[in-house]
């Protein structure tokens, strides 16, 4: 029974794309992934812009003080099991909009850093923006984690 469920979870990951704040570019690349050249529906990925239905939350962009609350809320409203993919440099660390190096970023007066400052992140996909292939790989890693359940 668990084997069947694990198989089904691996074959049917539904994604929701959350733009936390940033330059909006990773968003477009995620849409690209859905379109004919890359077509992730082959892997069972459906774009469900509804956290109640989605399994994988793809977040992009840095978290601002303003958007932190709603990101947290959207994440809370997803149903378990759920995984989060941080897409792009901003989502991983805060990117160009923060001062500092690597994970040791300083907050600016608006930006508090990467998405992991607001919600737990399972997969990091760096790049500005990441290539579609990298996005697909990130989702695939998230699927592997999803298969294991919680």
């Amino acid at each position, binding site marked *: 029974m668990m084997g069947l469920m694990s198989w089904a979870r691996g074959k049917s990951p539904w994604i929701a794309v959350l733009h936390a704040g940033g330059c909006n570019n990773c968003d477009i690349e995620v849409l690209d992934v859905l379109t004919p050249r890359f077509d992730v529906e082959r892997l069972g990925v459906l774009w469900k812009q509804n*956290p109640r239905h989605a399994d994988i939350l793809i977040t992009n962009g840095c978290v601002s003080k303003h958007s932190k609350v709603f990101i947290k*809320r959207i994440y809370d*409203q997803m149903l378990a099991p759920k995984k989060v993919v941080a897409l792009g440099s901003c989502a991983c660390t805060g990117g160009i909009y923060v001062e500092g190096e690597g994970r040791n970023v300083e907050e600016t007066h608006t930006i508090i850093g990467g998405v992991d400052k607001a919600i737990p992140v399972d997969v990091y996909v760096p790049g500005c923006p990441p290539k579609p292939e990298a996005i697909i790989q990130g989702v695939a890693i998230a699927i592997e984690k999803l298969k294991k*359940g919680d």
Partner: protein
Amino acid sequence: MIDPAIVIIVLYIAAAFCLLGKKIRKGNDVVALLAIGFALLAVVLNYFYLPLWISVPGVFGFAFTINGYTNLIALIATFIGFLVVVYSVKYIEHRGSSYSLFVLLTIGSLIGMAYSWNLFWVFLFAEVATITSTFLIAHHLKSPSFEGGLKYLSIQIFASLFVVVGLGFIYQEALASGYSGIGAFSIDFLLSSGLLTGFIGKFSLFLIFLGFLVKVPSFPIHTWLPDASTVAPASISTLLHAMMIKVAGMPAFLILLLFHSLFVSINFWLVICSLGILTMLICVIIAFAQNDLKRLLAFDSVSQMGYVILGMGIGGLAISFYDITTDPVWLVVAAGGITAGLFHLLNHSLFKSVLFFSAGAIEHETGTRDINQLGGLLQAMPKTGYVMLIGSLAIAGVPLLNGFISKWMVYNACISAGQPVFALIAIFTSALTLAVFLRILCSVFLGNSPGTFEGVHAAPRSMFTPSLLLAIGCILFGVFPQIAILFLILPATTVLLPVAITPPANPLFWVSLDLFLLGTLLIIGLIIGYLLYRIKWGATPSEAEDKTMPFTGGTLKDPYLKVEEARPASTVFSYPFRSLLNGVRRSHTGLVNMYILWFVLFAVLMLSLLIVGWI
């Protein structure tokens, strides 16, 4: 059997006792309950034709008869009357002695009307019931109550003019043939003596028909019912909708069907059917726009009576135009149409009482009837909510509830009679009814509470139990319609049909579906779904603060959005009909003069059609 005269006298005397009990309010209830309980007992006993015969000879001039038809009507009247009295105990809080007095007088007169087999007595009891119920409608003693009551009274009195003229014509005929006395109005006498032949008979019966059609009510003269039942207390609205319009309206069809040999034109019956169609369609569309819960229910009542008119019309079409004694196909149509109409009549008194009782409970607890202001009551009054859910689904014709069966029989009757257009419009009306009742359900019971109904609690038991009983009846007759049809409806149909129903022509044929089996399959489906839902597949629920809050796209808290603000209102449903509705609205001016003018125009049109000989 117990002579109906005794029942009526007991009720009248109990009413007189209530006059004394101005000081002892509890006493009023006890007297009323005892009297109506006795009446119910007597009617049920009559129903089984018990050999015990108790009678008061001479009173009311042997006006009454006990047969399947009168039994059915009297049973509806007494049973609903009983529940109304029970309901009133808690519902009418500050009543003087007059409330119980007039309730008992009205119910008594209606029982008398149900049992009367004499046109004169039918008319007389109808008049008494009209006048006493006017006091009930104006019970609140406020300006709108008086207005509603007077509107009701004036239209009813105007309608009874037609009955008086009709009766006068009949009496003249009787005198000319050498008969006199009230006995000349006896239906049995009129049928057997062949007094009513030719144009005068047809004309006088038609006048009486028009007079009683107002009480049904039919389309152009339906306006009194919503107006009266809006201002009346909920118990009185129930009384009006579940008893009054049935008991007082059915004589219209009784005389048409019994004297069918006078109305052999197919046009006549098609006009009756069209009246039914217009009634059901137009009134359900008006019901869409209503924001007042009781007014909505009232317009829907009129619409439901359209089904009854349609069923009776189809039955009459088959009886009078086709030779049903030799042709079993048309016998099925005749029996089926009348059975469907009567069954819908019975069902309508069940579910409409449920709905009005519940509406009364809602008004009692929250103090408002405005649909747009109510909301989320399923949390506060769950029992009333679920009972009203059953009532609404039944009236909308959801399968496995009683409304579906009777509507289905009406459709079957129309299609078998070769009039599928009527059936199709009726099906569409049924969908509209569903939408109307979804509107009530969704915005009154589901949806968010606007936050003003914090202190609302469940209705008292005496106000809830009657509706629960009736709701159980809705389910029972929905799953086992055979019970109601075989024991209640078919005896009544037999009275109205000129020939006996032979077994192959049994209208039960139309309930071709084994509804119990269907229910079983439905429950199997539910169980399959429930098992799928309950199986533990191994997902640990996540813990989060905002998880169960409604998903609005990230905004929840005050500077952006209060969840209470985001309550889409139910009138969304009405937008496709807005232009049509505004047209109808302009015609319903609310002026009693206009309504009487409509009535006159309608009567003139119908009578001139009759005189020209087209119908």
